[in-house]
Every structure is written in structure tokens, then in C-alpha cells.
């Protein structure tokens, strides 16, 4: 039957090409739209995964509810306590309760690649008359370089120099400009109400992300001293060998202590929500193209069935079964779908290669690669092929079944009239 189906398709070349084009464009559209969207997505996820920690262990912030304090004040004395006014506010323990036990746990876990304790302090930097409030992050500099890629963005000096201790700073490029400071110069660091302490700038980094470039890093001990919170940390940042395990580990770990444990994908949940919306748009728009292409196939096949009624009669009389007839027309649609999809896949791939050469300095992601990022994820191609073949099959099954229902005798009678 494939033999005859091919002959039919070749005989009406122009129609075949036009219907094929529908599937072809649908496939190309899906591959290029998906390529662009997923390319961007893979870049962002790559940045998230490689630039920052996979799991964050933080002190838990608890909010007071109306009856949170009943137990503490009155025990079991009363059934119900009426507060006026009801207690509200935050139960603050900004510090990780028992960091040592976390260190032991993390050091023993084979899934953990590196971890660093962090103390984040809001401080005021001043250099002569220039002052700037900013976030100072105290960390284990050698570990920090493994947990995040901050070390890769150092443009002057060396991040490892922080480790030597003795009030040293790595400052972001934006902060450096605000303070007008140079490498190896001293700046003063103070809390809002504290004595300033001199710090020496030993590294300057530039990530291209404004928030990050307005921060500064110091050795953990130095920052604890400035913040007057010796031995305390408010976060432990963890890098895993396999970032996909982050969510599972975060859930397991948060059951172990009183700290909030969040994975990178939980923290960036809003970004993933945007991805979901993107996916919906992607499948809907391409779905529309495929529906139109499917209608093309449906129309052409319905017409072909009408035109080839006599062929159906003669085929049935020479012993071809109803199933063979269904196949004869279904195969035509399938061939259109398959060849449209194949051409579309090839062209879509080529288009992707071309799009990649287009210069594109992506707005806030100034540190990007400087050209468009096109994903060549195999899933895109599999989904595209599936969509194309599915729409072609659905479009051809109805006319094919109607051809199978034709009885030879009715056609012959109609033909003789």
C-alpha cells in the first residue's frame, strides 16, 4: 500500500508540497522557538547552578502569631487566652544555632562538594569622604571559591588573599567605584553605631550582576569581629557534586535542625514559574501551527478519498481488505508528517546554527556569551517530531477510516450511472 500511497503523493506534487510545508513550518517554528527559550533557560540555570551555592542553610525566621506565646506565659492554665493587643512581630534568631554540628554533618556527606559558613553583615564603608552602605559577607575564602564562582570574576588582585586574615576585603566593581578605592588601599568598615575598623582591599571582582557587584567579601573571623558576633554565622552555603539532588537533600536536612534549608531551585521558584508560562506559550503557539497544518492534511486527504473512490472499489474487488484501504490513505498522511518533520528538524537545526552567530548582548546578563544561545536539547527535537507526526496522524486517521467504510458495491453502482 505504501507503494501506491507514494504514487498518489507524487502524482499531485504541488498539493503534497503545500501540505508538507505546513508541517515543515510547524516543526521549524517549534525547534527555533524552543531553542531560543531553552537556550536562554539553560544559560540562566547554568548561571544559577554554577555561580552560587546549591543548598543554603539559614537561621529560621519565625513570625509571632496571636497564640504563639500562650504556652510560654500560661502553660495549660487556660483553655483560651484573650490578648489585648495580641502579640505580633518576629522571633529573631538570625544566627545558625549549632553550626559545628552542621559542619560535621556536611563534612561527612559524600554528596557535598564544598561548604562555607557565612556571616552577612550590613555595614558602612567609607574612604575619606565617600561612604557607602553595603553588604559585607564573611566567609571561608578558600571554600567560598569552590562553593561559588566568585573567584573567576576577580579582575584585580586575588580572592585567596583574603584567607591570610587581618582585615582584608574583596570588593565588587560597583562598590569600588562608589568608594573610589584602588587595590591595596584601606577603607573603613563600621556598623551603624560602632567603631570603624580599617580593611585593606586585596581583590576586586566584577560579575556583571549589579547586586553582586555592590557587595564585599571578607574572612569570616574578621567580619565576626566587626559585627561583634564572634563565632556566629547566619548561613552555611553548600555546593553539591550533583545539583539535581539539591531539592531532596534540602528537604531531608530541614527535618534535622531548626534552620531553614533551601535548595537553589526553591529560592529561585519565581524563575521556574516564568519557565512554566514560557512552556505554555511555546506549546500553544506551535500547537496552533500544527492544528492548521493538520487541517491541511485533513482537507487534502478527504478530497483524495473522494477522488479515488473508484480506486477503492477496484482495490476491494481485487481482494484488498478494508484495513488495506485505511492504510492506503493513512500512510499518505503519515508520509507527509514524517517528511515534513524530517525536513523541519534538519532545517530547524541549521537555523539554530545560524541564529547562534547573531550578536546579542543580553541586557542584564551583560556577562553573557555575546551571541544568541540556542539549545540543542534532544528533547526539543523529539517533541517536535512527536507533535508533527501526531498532528499528521490525527488528521489522516479520519479520512482514512471513512475510506475504509466505503463499500465497493456502492461505488461501482454510483460509477455506472
Amino acid at each position, binding site marked *: 500500500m505504501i*507503494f*501506491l500511497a507514494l*504514487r*498518489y503523493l*507524487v*502524482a499531485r506534487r504541488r498539493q503534497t508540497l503545500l501540505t508538507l510545508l505546513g508541517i515543515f513550518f510547524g516543526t521549524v517554528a517549534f525547534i527555533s522557538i524552543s531553542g531560543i527559550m531553552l537556550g536562554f533557560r539553560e544559560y540562566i540555570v547554568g548561571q544559577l547552578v554554577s555561580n552560587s551555592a546549591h543548598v543554603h542553610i539559614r537561621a529560621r525566621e519565625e513570625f509571632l502569631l496571636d497564640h504563639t506565646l500562650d504556652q510560654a506565659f500560661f502553660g495549660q492554665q487556660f483553655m483560651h487566652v484573650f490578648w489585648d493587643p495580641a502579640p505580633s512581630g518576629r522571633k529573631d534568631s538570625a544566627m545558625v544555632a549549632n553550626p559545628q554540628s552542621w559542619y560535621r554533618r556536611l563534612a561527612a556527606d559524600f554528596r557535598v562538594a564544598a561548604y562555607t559558613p557565612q556571616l552577612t553583615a550590613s555595614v558602612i564603608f567609607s574612604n575619606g569622604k565617600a561612604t557607602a552602605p553595603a553588604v559585607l559577607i564573611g566567609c571561608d575564602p578558600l571554600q567560598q571559591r569552590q562553593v561559588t564562582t566568585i573567584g573567576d570574576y576577580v579582575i584585580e588582585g586575588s580572592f585567596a588573599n583574603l584567607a591570610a586574615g587581618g582585615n582584608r576585603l574583596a570588593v565588587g566593581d560597583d562598590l569600588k567605584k562608589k568608594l573610589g578605592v584602588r587595590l591595596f588601599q584601606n577603607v573603613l568598615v563600621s556598623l551603624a553605631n560602632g567603631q570603624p575598623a580599617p580593611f585593606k582591599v586585596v581583590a576586586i571582582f566584577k560579575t556583571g550582576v549589579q547586586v553582586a557587584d555592590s557587595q564585599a567579601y571578607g574572612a569570616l573571623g574578621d567580619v565576626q569581629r566587626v559585627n561583634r558576633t564572634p563565632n556566629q554565622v547566619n548561613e552555611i552555603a553548600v555546593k553539591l557534586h550533583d545539583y539535581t539532588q539539591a531539592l531532596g537533600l534540602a528537604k531531608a536536612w530541614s527535618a534535622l535542625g531548626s534552620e531553614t534549608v533551601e535548595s537553589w531551585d526553591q529560592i529561585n521558584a519565581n524563575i521556574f514559574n516564568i519557565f512554566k508560562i514560557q512552556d505554555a506559550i511555546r506549546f500553544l503557539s506551535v500547537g496552533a501551527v500544527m492544528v492548521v497544518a493538520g487541517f491541511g492534511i485533513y482537507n487534502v486527504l478527504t478530497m483524495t478519498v473522494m477522488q479515488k473512490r*473508484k*480506486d477503492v*472499489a*477496484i*482495490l*476491494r*474487488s*481485487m*481482494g*484488498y*481488505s*478494508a484495513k*488495506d484501504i485505511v492504510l492506503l490513505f493513512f500512510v499518505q498522511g503519515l508520509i507527509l508528517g514524517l517528511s515534513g518533520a524530517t525536513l523541519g528538524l534538519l532545517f530547524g537545526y541549521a537555523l539554530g546554527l545560524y541564529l547562534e552567530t547573531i550578536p546579542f548582548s543580553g541586557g542584564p546578563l551583560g556577562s553573557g556569551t555575546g551571541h544568541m544561545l540556542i539549545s540543542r536539547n534532544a528533547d526539543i527535537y523529539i517533541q517536535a517530531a512527536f507533535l508533527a507526526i501526531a498532528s499528521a496522524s490525527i488528521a489522516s486517521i479520519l479520512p482514512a477510516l471513512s475510506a475504509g467504510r466505503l463499500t*465497493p*458495491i456502492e461505488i*461501482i*453502482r454510483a*460509477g*455506472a450511472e
Partner: protein
Amino acid sequence: MGIVVTGVGKEIGDPPTRILSDIAFRIDDGEFVALTGRSGSGKSTLLYILSSLDRASSGLVHIDGFDVNHTKAETLSHFRNQHMGFVFQFHYLIAELTAFENVLFPARKTGAERTQSAYAEALLGRFGLGDKMQRLPRQLSGGEQQRVAIARALVMKPKYLFADEPTGSLDSVSGEQVMDIIRDCNTQLGTTVIMVTHDPDFARQARRQIHLADGKIVSAA
């Protein structure tokens, strides 16, 4: 074995119109039977019932001993493919295939196109179309097309050949040629031929005539 019909009637449409009633006869292997009668007498309808393409509303049809009404469609299809050939008034060639491919098409069902291709060539050669095998139907005359259709009906060396006014759309010369082929087929290959015809001359060439009027057999000589 042959074809045996007993008490066959046919109603068609809604409200039902009776087209055939009380048809009973037997066709033995190797016979050449002509179905005759006026236009509208039910000849075509009977032919398609005899050949299992259509079903009787009542009565029994036995082909080669099996009951058509109680045989699966797949089995009937296979039987038609292997043992029956059809020739229609309008040749019904597949326009996209060459004469040769048309003739060989029944063999494709069972993947026998290799083994039958020599025979297909021989048939076309015998019908005077040896040099026109690679032509498409539209490049052939009506008579030539009908000869291709007969070759197609014979390519599986069928036991039965059903022909519905095979000469109906042809001029007298082409008609004679086609009749010669059909007669040779019966005498030389031993094919059982059942042919509907208007033409009394052609009907006389058959060894037996079944004459229909208003859906009934009036004479079965």
C-alpha cells in the same frame, strides 16, 4: 465445486425495494455463463452477489463450498485476491500506475509481484500490448485500457472471472477483441466465466444464458 445459489433475494434502500427474488441455480467449474436481461432487471446486482462483493438479503450463496454469509470479510478478501478476477464496464485502472503496474497490482497484496511479473508481461503481450506496458492509462485507448483491465483480472490465474458488461463502453472492433480474450480464457485456461451483457451476439458465445426480468430468472438455458 462451483457457485451454488438457493433462494436468493435482494432488497435495497429505505423503504426497501425488491431487486431480486427467488434466484436459484448452480454454476459448475469451467462454465461460461452469460447473465442477460433488460436494463434494470438486476443483472449487476446478481453478479456482485455471486462474487461476494455484495450480500444477499435472503437465501444462500456457496462459493467453492463455503457459505458467503458466514465467512469473515478477511477470508473473502483473500479468496477474491487468489481466485477471482473482475472486469467492469468502466475499466477502473489506477491512473497513477503504468499498464504493467496495474496488471501486477493484485499480486502485491501477498507480495507475489516478483513471481507473477513474467506472467503479467506474457498476458499483456498476448493482448497486443507488449510495447505499451510502461504507458499510463491515459496514454491508452479505451479498448486498450479494457484489455489491461482483463489482464489484471487474470494475473492471479483466477478460478472465476466476473465481467459486468466488459464491452459496454467499447466500439464493435474492440468489443470483439475483448470477447475473444474472455472466450479464450474460458476454453484455454479453464476459467469459470460469468458475464453480464446486453449484446445478444456476445451472449450467444456463452455456453449458457441466464435471462433475468424484474429480478427473477425467466429462462436458464
